[in-house]
């Protein structure tokens, strides 16, 4: 979610296999650099998933950290969020006919601390937004909650409250998500 010169990225903490919970403190939002974070939701549909592959795809972020470090070495600076979004989109589209099962949410501060957020489907179709982006099993209720609770130009503290309430409200209505949330505000 975008606020005034800041952004917040939040995820729930449950890791599960079908209806069984494996962990209640699973970290899904990963840091690329100080001002750029990516959240990876392994999309579980109504069918059952093999949890090994779902976790492996969530750890796909290590590949992204590797690419970012290469970029930092060559360019001697951090990647801009827009550039990183294009990188993730290209990496996902490369696997167009055998995709990774993850939907990333990217949030960062660009030039002049302009907040940038975007989400993608599992083959890399970027969706930029000025207000909020959502992904995951509870995405339909997240759309609804964020749509009603979002206000433009929120200060960080109010942004924190809003994104937490939206996340909690939505995961309460989804069996496959829950156990609280991690919220990162930059």
């Amino acid at each position, binding site marked *: 979610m975008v606020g005034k010169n800041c952004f917040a990225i939040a995820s729930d903490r449950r890791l599960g296999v079908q209806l069984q919970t494996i962990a209640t403190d699973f970290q899904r939002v990963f840091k690329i650099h100080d001002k750029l974070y990516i959240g990876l939701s392994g999309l579980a*549909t109504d069918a*059952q*998933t093999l949890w090994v592959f779902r976790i492996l795809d969530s750890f796909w972020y290590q590949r992204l950290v590797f690419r970012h470090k290469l970029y930092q070495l060559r360019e001697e600076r951090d990647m801009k969020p827009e550039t990183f979004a294009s990188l993730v989109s290209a990496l996902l589209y490369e696997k167009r006919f055998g995709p990774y*099962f993850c939907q990333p949410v990217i949030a960062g501060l660009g030039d002049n601390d302009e907040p940038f957020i975007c989400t993608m489907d*599992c083959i890399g179709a970027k*969706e930029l937004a000025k207000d909020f982006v959502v992904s995951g099993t509870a995405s339909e209720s997240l759309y609804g909650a964020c749509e009603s609770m979002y206000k433009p130009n929120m200060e960080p503290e109010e942004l924190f409250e809003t994104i937490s309430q939206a996340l909690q409200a939505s995961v309460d209505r989804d069996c496959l998500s829950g156990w609280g949330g991690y919220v990162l505000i930059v």
Partner: protein
Amino acid sequence: MTGSMDLPAKGGFSFDLCRRNNMLEKNGLKLPGFRKTGTTIVGLVFQDGVVLGADTRATEGPIVADKNCEKIHFMAPNIYCCGAGTAADTEAVTDMVSSQLQLHRYATGHESRVVTALTLLKSHLFRYQGHVSAALVLGGVDCTGPHLHTVYPHGSTDTLPFATMGSGSLAAMSVFESKYKEGLTREEGIQLVSDAICAGIFNDLGSGSNVDVCVITKGKTEYLRNHQLPNPRTYASSKGYSFTKGQTEVLSTKITPLKQKVEVTGGGDAMEE
């Protein structure tokens, strides 16, 4: 999963996860749905050039994923392309052909021709036999005049004076068939395109939100983003939700101040040979 991470891949599609995914599908995993653009895209030729139009809704199954996405993609300063179908495919294909056109411009030194873009698109789509699901309306003005083409996902193309594609194409085509005539002026062209897109927006469930229009004439292109906003959001309460601080129960907080990057400026000593 690990594979060879030494070098970034050379380009093109990589199929190494296909076997794994097939195995997962046999075990009951359903592939996550792709974002489609469920669209109305149109184009028409008027007396001085080409007008392209598109709606702005991106859907993911029955849910609207993006209420204001851009479906008119840049190919060259004088060529634009509207895309319908799977969103990732239309974006990737138009970006790729756009860069190929730029390289071609550098090599030849001339303005790109619409048929060049058309051939690049159709050969790419035919090579993938329709699996790259991108249906495009390509329009532009080059030294040979204004051109409008449609490209289908399997690689076939049509050259037409007015064209519609996408789920709302029938609604838009009905407007075109009744009102199109040769030699339209710019204002009439824009009005007709907006009417056709609005017909798609209001009558097709997969299209919605706003109207984007792009007018291409010889030497000038105007991209009218959100030319019409027929679906303003009127139902938001003016007060909105306001949450007082402390309403959310916090288990733990960690605050990390970001290190400031210090730029060292000032003349350094010139390197001595």
